């Protein structure tokens, strides 16, 4: 996909001034909602996300209950005003797919066998979107789950890497750079996008999707970069959770 925009210049600086392996700015706050059992507000570049967890509570309708463990129901939704062209309210196919892969990623880290017949509902609302919303959503969901006191094997974290600046001729790509955390223009005009989610403690991959064109070597580079990104973000998640409870501890 060729475009007139030069996504990365000779000095290795991207459109927004970032280096190839640099993340956009991320801010995380835990426990921001009053009604939800657990919640998180997250800003990532131009993304603004709220995640709320309800549960565990009895799964309804009853036929959806699993007698051995809890089911995870993640719902990813973009607000009508979160994108350039107003989005009609309601889930579209893209949202349903993202909801599914996020639910599946979370299944692995939630200790679900403690809550037979129950459901844990994770609601992710994208209020302002700027590429990488599913990574932002899952990262916020991880914090919300921990904030809700739901037993977890790990706090899941998500990040994406991709490739920009390559030129395509007859199905072959030449040039290009593997970069971390694609921004808006990079997502639109780039060559590949690889969002992943991991369990930081074990480095297991919980979510992975890829679209675009990467050589095997580039894939390995991108994966490694995304995993490194995840570790940086994991620290921010943990800080946000500690921040919430630390203030109590520091009295006298």
């Amino acid at each position: 996909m060729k475009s007139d925009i030069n996504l990365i210049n000779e000095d290795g600086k991207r459109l927004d001034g970032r280096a190839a392996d640099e993340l956009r700015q991320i801010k995380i706050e835990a426990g921001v909602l009053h009604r939800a059992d657990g919640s998180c507000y997250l800003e990532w570049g131009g993304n603004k996300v709220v995640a709320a967890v309800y549960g565990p509570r009895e799964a309804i309708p009853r036929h959806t209950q699993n007698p051995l463990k809890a089911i995870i129901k993640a719902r990813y939704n973009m607000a009508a005003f979160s994108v350039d062209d107003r989005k009609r309210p309601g889930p579209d196919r893209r949202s349903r797919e993202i909801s599914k892969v996020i639910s599946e990623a979370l299944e692995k880290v939630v200790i679900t066998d403690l809550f037979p017949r129950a459901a844990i509902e994770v609601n992710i609302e994208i209020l302002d979107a700027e590429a990488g919303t599913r990574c932002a959503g899952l990262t916020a969901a991880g914090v919300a789950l921990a904030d809700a006191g739901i037993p977890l094997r790990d706090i899941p974290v998500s990040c994406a890497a991709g490739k920009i600046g390559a030129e395509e001729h007859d199905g072959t790509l030449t040039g290009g750079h593997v970069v971390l955390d694609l921004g808006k223009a990079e997502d639109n005009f780039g060559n590949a996008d690889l969002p992943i989610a991991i369990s930081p403690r074990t480095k297991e991959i919980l979510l992975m999707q890829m679209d675009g064109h990467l050589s095997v070597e580039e894939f390995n580079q991108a994966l490694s970069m995304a995993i490194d990104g995840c570790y940086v973000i994991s620290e921010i998640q943990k800080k946000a959770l500690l921040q919430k409870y630390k203030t109590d501890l520091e009295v006298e």
Partner: protein
Amino acid sequence: MEKTKREIVLPSQYLGDINKNKAGRGTFIEQGKIYARIVGVLHQNPPYINVIPVKGRYDAVEGDLIIGFVEEPLSSSWLVDINAPYPALLHVNEVPWDVEFGETEKYLNTGDSIMAKILSVDLEKKLNITLKDRNLYKIRGGHIIDVEPSKVPRIIGKKGSMIGLLKKYTHCRIFVGQNGRIWIDGDDENIVKMLEAIRLIEEESISYGLTNKVENLLKTQ
């Protein structure tokens, strides 16, 4: 108050090995290692490593005294909300009255509050409660508030010290359910005093010197 360092741990944090320690509350074991599974305060009671939750739903344990809200009278039982992930079942055999089949509403109806005890929790987490005990009954009068179940031990205090303090200064009757519901009865001014004190305990539950703070609050009104 001992100045033991209160450390907050997060899920997936490594806490110890099973050849030296035992996995207590709020932890899980993987490949011989003990990890925290919730956000909580690390509490070592050698050889046990425990993590006391700062937040979370009520986890029913047999014998717990709780406050339930009747959701639905069924033909020979009632469904009761006890602030757990699941509603609890109160069977007609577990109440002190002689209830005819289909007449459950005459005794307890939707919206009633009861002080009950957890009778059993089975493998599928199906909960049964009972009213058959001296101190259990249908609640009348007073006021009920909700707090985080994890704060209940703080509100009761070591050997009932905190709850004793609350009773002393407010002259209210108070019952603290393990499931985070608290029933209070007394005259209105004192109920307000009690509510403020409980909110303070909730907000600063892991601070040091909380008992003194609460006492000061109660004294000054």
